[in-house]
């Protein structure tokens, strides 16, 4: 086996990306936990991890650029590095979504806690689950696992549409809790975005592993373009 140094550099790149993925996933979970228990100290944790995520994004981009310039990667190596760069961007935006959610929680601090016809923790766990599965497909370089993520997107889209309907109805009919409903709606939108990023990550994995460009596909149920996150 030749080009040992290069192989190691690729391994390092993969590891750094996984570290970043861990941080992003954790940020989402913390943000939703903060919503559930209305604990502002958890929001602080989310803000701190966002800083770490942004720094890692820059480092990974730089490392990928260096490899492209210095090693003239071809075929699968080239696709891998391209995939890493794209997944890098998606993970950073997952971090941004977590920050948005935590900002919503902060702005709801003074508001009363009310019952709303949405199950945000459930939606969050679905979106999170998609991200985790997408990253699993990346670790294992498994296009089939990646494809299964693509089909999970429809469920999240459906939940988001239902939430939109329910919450707009609340805002119209129960205007005294409209602020809470509005913030909840924005949180749902952030979670839907997270699901989209998970789909993007899966598409990038399929591109890397199979050399197939499956972007901008219509899902089997004719759902929304899964690429809306970009």
């Amino acid at each position: 086996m030749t080009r040992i140094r290069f192989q190691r550099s690729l391994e390092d790149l993969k590891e750094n990306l996984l570290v970043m993925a861990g941080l992003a996933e954790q940020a989402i979970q913390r943000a939703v936990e903060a919503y559930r228990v209305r604990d502002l100290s958890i929001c602080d944790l989310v803000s701190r991890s966002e800083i770490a995520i942004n720094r890692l994004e820059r480092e990974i981009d730089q490392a990928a650029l260096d490899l492209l310039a210095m090693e003239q990667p071809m075929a699968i190596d080239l696709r891998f590095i391209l995939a890493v760069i794209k997944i890098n961007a998606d993970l950073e935006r997952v971090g941004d979504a977590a920050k948005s959610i935590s900002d919503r929680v902060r702005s709801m601090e003074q508001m009363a806690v009310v019952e709303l016809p949405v199950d945000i923790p459930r939606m969050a766990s679905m979106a999170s689950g998609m991200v985790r599965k997408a990253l699993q497909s990346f670790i294992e370089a498994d296009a089939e696992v990646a494809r299964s993520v693509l089909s999970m997107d429809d469920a999240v889209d459906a939940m988001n549409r239902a939430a939109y309907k329910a919450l707009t109805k609340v805002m119209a009919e129960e205007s005294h809790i409209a602020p809470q409903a509005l913030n909840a709606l924005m949180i749902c939108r952030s979670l839907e975005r997270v699901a989209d990023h998970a789909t993007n990550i899966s598409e990038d994995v399929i591109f890397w592993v199979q050399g197939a460009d499956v972007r901008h596909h219509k899902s089997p149920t004719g759902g929304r373009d899964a690429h809306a996150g970009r």
Partner: protein
Amino acid sequence: MGVGIEVTNLNAWYGTNHTLQDINLNIPANHATALIGPSGCGKSTFVRCLNRMHETNPIARVTGLVRIGDLDIYKDAKPVEIRRRVGMVFQRPNPFPTMSIFDNVAAGLKLNGYSNRRSLDEIVERSLKDSALWDEVKDDLKKKSGASLSGGQQQRLCIARALAVDPEVLLMDEPASALDPVSTSKIEDLIFQLKSQYTIVIVTHNMQQAARVAEKTGFFLNGRMVEFDSTHKIFTNPSDKRTEDYITGRFG
């Protein structure tokens, strides 16, 4: 204008060494096709079968069909005739050392009996312009010898010499491997321009060069052609694992 090359079941031997095994491919007209592969894989031998230079070695043998345009080059014509239609540029520039620049370019014509003075002048000028050497040598055509030029210039001189006989196909066996990066770029730009008039086959061990100049690429390994496809496909997503291992440097 260039013509396509059709190769069917080509086998070649050097003595008992079965250098090429069952090669089948179609080289498109007016395109540049690159042939890559590790040392000793047979790509140079293959190219030399296309202009019947392979048989200048007394222990060489060839079977199979090579059709250039509509001509079966092994049955329908003599080697000398083929080589006037299929030009060749070698790895190390080899201008004729005793001849001036002018005579070098005109050599293919003069040695085949062509002697019309005025059209020789025109042909030499056109060939030197086509090989991007005219401006550098136009004042010294008959005064300087071919061997007094720099390496990159010598190679362009050899290209001009090959073009002067107006071939349909141009074979280039690692034409830039002995040259510095600037000369290499000039040669690559040249190939790009020449593509529209000739069919070019270029053997190279430099994959980035193949990627830069050729529309189609063939990967040779141990005397066989493993994969032949668009350059884009070969270098982004090759079908054969051996191809991928070679181009990503995992070979060996």
